[in-house]
């Protein structure tokens, strides 16, 4: 197992009721595995990450895709599509 730091922003932070948390993942986990683990919690996590709503994942502050690996100790952020500018 390795521990990662999760961060939530904007609407997802409001929906999950927290700005982040530490999570333990099996070694070799990918972004898709992390998302599945969160969706399995049900509630707001299933609503936001398990349905048709669009969200983005960044691993160590780089935009990531479902198949990307999550290194040990990574900072992983989950957030809605961006709306700056």
């Amino acid at each position, binding site marked *: 197992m390795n521990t990662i730091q999760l*961060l939530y*922003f*904007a*609407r997802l932070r*409001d929906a999950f009721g927290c700005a982040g948390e530490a999570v333990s993942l099996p070694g070799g986990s990918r972004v898709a595995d992390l998302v599945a683990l969160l969706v399995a919690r049900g509630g707001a996590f299933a609503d936001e990450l398990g349905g048709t709503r*669009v969200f983005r994942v*960044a691993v160590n*502050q*780089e*935009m990531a895709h479902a198949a990307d690996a999550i290194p040990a100790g990574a900072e992983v*952020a989950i*957030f*809605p*599509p*961006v*709306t*700056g*500018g």
Partner: protein
Amino acid sequence: MASITIRVGPDDFDLGAEYAALVAGEADSGAVVAFVGRVRDLSLDRHVAVLELEHYPGMTEKALAKIADSAAARWPLTAVTVVHRVGPLHPADQIVLVLTASAHRHAAYDANAYIMDYLKTEAPFWKRESDGQTAHWVDARDSDSEAIQRWHPDDTP
């Protein structure tokens, strides 16, 4: 090598001062394009009293630098400045400034529009609008993700 300046924070910016700093002491930048994005009073027909800009400290600056580097690799730019504000803003307040300088005007125009198109879809900022009573997070627009298609279907900075 383009000289690149990135700044993210709550402070307002001065277009004239940023432009003066960009071109100070040089005569290579025959063309300078500036974009200023401002808070509009009407957003989708709701009256906006406060616009709150949230960001992802650390990643935001990296994402903006990556977009600016990508523009400088694609066009012959002499300098780029990107300033983006965060925190509470009000109608007519300035949100974002992009300055691009080049020897050639079409390079300065295109690089500027490219930076804004990618900023709108790749830089971690989120807007929350409030009319003074209720607040809501602004949804991303399809038109913004479509805008980057013109720079290449497979181009991601």
